C-alpha cells in the first residue's frame, strides 16, 4: 500500500513537471500517438479489405466447386466461324455420376438478350438452370415461386424474374402470370416468380467476372436448350458473332466441407484433358481454397502493416528519448537540489522514468482514441471526396471505394502496450543519466 502511495506521489510530481513545458510534452506525445493510431488504422483498413474479399468468396459458397467456361482469345479458337468452347454436358454428367460426395450439381447456361412486355423492353440475361440453383445461391422470393423440378423435366416455358427486370418491364402491373417476350428467339415465357434484390458480386479471380444479377431471367435449362440450340448468334458492331457453348457454368455443391478439396481434385482429374489443352476454355474455382488463400493474404498483410506501424512507434520512442535527455540536462540543477535534500539515485531514476512513461501512456491513450475514430473519419473522408471529386472516386475499383475499416480488437491493447513499453525502454537511459549526476556538480550548474 505504501509503495502504491509512493508511486502515486511520484506520478503526481511527474505530471506537474510535464506541465512546466506543456508544448514540449505535447510534441513528445505526438510521436507516440501517431504510432499507436497508425497501427490501429492500418490494421483496420487491412481487415476491412480482407473481410470484404472473404465475404465475396464466401458468397460463392464454401462447399461449392465452380467450373466456369471462359471464352478464349481469338488466336486459340481455330479457323471456324463459330467460337466453340466451354464445359460439355457429357463431362458434366460424368462428374455427377462418378463423384458420390457431390450433393447437387447445377448446370447454368446464359445468354445476353433483350426482353419486352407491352411497350417496355430491357436488355438482360437469360439464364437457364435447374431448381437447385435457387437453393444453392440462397435466393429469396419476393413473389410467386421458383422453378420447380417438374418445370425442368417438362421443359416448361416458365420464368422467374429478378427484381430489376421486373420493375423495368412491369412498372405498374403484377408480373405473375404475364408473358415476357424475347424478340431475338421469338419465344414467350410466363412469369411464375419474382426474386428479391440480390447483391452484386465483385470479380474474384479471372474466371468469375463481376456479376450484376439485377437483369436476370431464369428459365429451365431444358427449355433453353430446346428453344435455343447450342449455337447462338449475335450481331454487334457490324459483325456477326457465333458461339457454341453447352454450359457456361457448373456449380457443384459438396455434401460436407471436409470433402471439398478431395472433390475438387476429382473434378480437376476428370476434366484434366480439357484443362491442360492449352485452350484455356474452362477453369475450376474452389472458393474454399480462395478463402484459405485470402486468410493467408490477410495474415501477411496484417504482419506487414504491423511492422510498418511498429517502425513508426520506434521512431516515436527515439523522439521521446531525445526530448528526455534534453529535459534531464535542463533540469540538472533541480536534480542536484533533490539529491541534496535526500533523494537517492533510485528516486531520481524513478522520477524521470515515471515522467517518460506518463508521456507514452498519454500518447497511447490519445492514439487509441484517434484509432477508434478510424471508421467515422474514413466515412467522412469518403463522403467529402465523393462530393468534391466524383469522377476520380468513380474510377477507383469498388473494393477501394467501398471499403469499410473494421477495427481489429487486439490491435488496441497491443499498440497501447507497445507504447507503454517504448516509454519504459527509451526512458531508461535518460533516467539513468539523471540519477548518476554528481550532486555537487549539479548544484553548480546554470
Amino acid at each position, binding site marked *: 500500500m505504501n509503495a502504491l502511495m509512493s508511486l502515486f506521489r511520484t506520478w503526481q510530481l511527474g505530471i506537474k513537471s510535464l506541465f512546466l513545458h506543456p508544448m514540449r510534452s505535447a510534441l513528445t506525445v505526438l510521436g507516440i500517438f501517431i504510432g499507436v493510431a497508425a497501427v490501429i488504422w492500418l490494421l483496420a483498413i487491412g481487415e476491412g479489405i480482407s473481410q470484404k474479399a472473404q465475404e465475396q468468396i464466401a458468397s460463392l459458397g464454401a462447399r461449392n466447386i465452380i467450373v466456369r467456361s471462359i471464352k478464349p482469345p481469338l488466336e486459340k479458337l481455330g479457323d471456324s466461324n463459330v467460337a466453340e468452347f466451354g464445359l460439355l454436358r457429357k463431362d458434366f454428367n460424368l462428374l455427377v455420376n462418378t463423384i458420390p460426395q457431390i450433393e447437387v450439381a447445377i448446370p447454368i447456361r446464359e445468354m445476353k438478350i433483350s426482353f419486352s412486355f407491352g411497350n417496355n423492353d430491357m436488355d438482360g440475361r437469360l439464364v437457364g438452370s435447374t431448381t437447385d440453383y435457387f437453393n444453392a445461391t440462397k435466393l429469396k422470393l419476393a413473389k410467386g415461386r421458383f422453378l420447380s423440378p417438374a418445370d425442368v423435366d417438362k421443359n416448361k416455358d416458365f420464368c422467374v424474374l429478378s427484381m430489376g427486370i421486373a420493375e423495368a418491364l412491369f412498372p405498374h402491373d403484377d408480373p405473375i402470370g404475364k408473358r415476357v417476350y424475347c424478340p431475338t428467339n421469338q419465344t414467350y415465357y410466363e412469369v411464375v416468380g419474382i426474386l428479391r434484390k440480390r447483391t452484386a458480386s465483385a470479380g474474384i479471380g479471372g474466371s468469375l467476372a463481376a456479376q450484376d444479377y439485377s437483369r436476370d431471367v431464369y428459365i429451365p435449362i431444358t427449355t433453353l436448350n430446346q428453344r435455343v440450340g447450342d449455337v447462338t448468334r449475335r450481331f454487334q458492331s457490324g459483325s456477326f458473332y457465333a458461339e457454341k457453348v453447352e454450359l457456361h457454368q457448373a456449380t457443384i455443391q459438396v455434401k460436407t466441407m471436409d470433402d471439398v478439396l478431395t472433390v475438387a481434385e476429382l473434378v480437376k482429374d476428370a476434366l484434366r484433358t480439357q484443362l491442360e489443352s492449352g485452350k484455356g476454355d474452362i477453369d475450376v474455382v474452389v472458393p474454399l481454397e480462395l478463402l484459405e488463400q485470402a486468410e493467408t493474404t490477410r495474415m501477411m498483410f496484417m504482419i506487414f502493416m504491423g511492422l510498418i506501424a511498429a517502425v513508426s512507434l520506434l521512431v516515436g520512442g527515439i523522439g521521446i528519448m531525445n526530448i528526455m535527455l534534453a529535459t534531464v540536462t535542463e533540469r540538472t540543477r533541480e536534480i542536484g537540489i533533490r539529491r541534496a*535534500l535526500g533523494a537517492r539515485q533510485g528516486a531520481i531514476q524513478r522520477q524521470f522514468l515515471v515522467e517518460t512513461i506518463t508521456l507514452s501512456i498519454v500518447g497511447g491513450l490519445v492514439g487509441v482514441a484517434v484509432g477508434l475514430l478510424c471508421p467515422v473519419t474514413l466515412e467522412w473522408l469518403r463522403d467529402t471526396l465523393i462530393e468534391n471529386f466524383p469522377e476520380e472516386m468513380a474510377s477507383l475499383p469498388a473494393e477501394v471505394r467501398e471499403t469499410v475499416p473494421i477495427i481489429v480488437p487486439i490491435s488496441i491493447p497491443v499498440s497501447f502496450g507497445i507504447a507503454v513499453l517504448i516509454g519504459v525502454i527509451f526512458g531508461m537511459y535518460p533516467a539513468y543519466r539523471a540519477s548518476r549526476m554528481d550532486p555537487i556538480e549539479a548544484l553548480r550548474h546554470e
Partner: protein
Amino acid sequence: MSNIAVRAENLGKDYVLKSETVHALRGVTFDVPEGDYVAIMGPSGSGKSTLLNLLGCLDRPSFGELYLGTENVATLNDNGLSDIRSKRIGFVFQSYNLIQQLNVVENIQVPLYYQGKVNRTTRKRAIELAGKVGLGDRQDHRPQQLSGGQMQRVAIARSMVNDPYYILADEATGNLDSKTTDEILCLFEELNAEGKTIIMVTHEDEVAARCRRVIRLRDGHIESDLPIEQDRQKYHYSMPTTELSEDEEEDVAVTQAQAVTSDGFSVDDDEIVMGGSSDSHDEPEIEVEIDE
C-alpha cells in the same frame, strides 16, 4: 557537556587529478555543539567549499572521521549519504534552490518526501513552518511568485522540517539586498535562540558578525576557531553600520578604543577594517582557549 551536533576528527579530502593530487582539506578537527551558531570563513582555495560538501554529506572524506550526532558518516555509501541528508541535515543555499513545480508547502516537505513520509500530518507541520517564517498567507504560491527574501524563508522552513542535527547555510544572504539580508539574519538568530544549530559558510564579515563563533580556514587547515568577540577583535572589524542599537553602538566604541596595532599605536576611525581580513595578517597568531 551538552550534545554534539557535528564532530570532525582529522577530517581531510584529496582530489586526485590526472597530473597531480590536490589536498583540499588537510585534516581539520572541531566540534559543533547543539545550539551553536558557527560561521565558517576562508578565502578561495582554503578548503571552505570542500568542508561544506563534507558537512553536507554530499561528498565522502579521504581520511578522518565525521560524526553527525553519534552517527559516523565517513564511510557511508551513496544511498546512506542520501538518507542522512534527508533525515539529519537542513540546507539553505545562496540561490534558494526551490523546486519550480511545487508550491511553498510542497517545497517545505521535500526532505520528508524523500524519507517516504508525506501525509496530512507532515503537511500540517509544513504549514506551521511556513507561518513561522512569515509566509503563512502564501502557502500555495510557487517560487516564481515569490521575492528573493521570501524564497529564502521557504528554504529555511524546508531546512527545519526534518528536525536536522544542524542547518547548513551556504552564503545564505549572498543574493539579497542589505535590508532583506538583515531580515534573514534576524530569522537565523531567532531560530538559534530557540536552540537550532546553525553552520553558516560565508565570506562576509558582517554576516559572520551575527554568529556566535567563527572558524577560519586557510590552505586546508583551521587557521582560527574563536568566539565571535575574539574573532572580531583579532581581525579588526565591527558590526555592520545599518541600524545599530544603543548597546551595539557602545560595543563599537569600546572596540574602537581597544583596537591597537602590534607596535602600540592607536587606530583612527578610518583604519577600522570592515570585512575581508586577508590584508591584516602581520600580527602573531593568538591562541585562545574556548571554554564551554
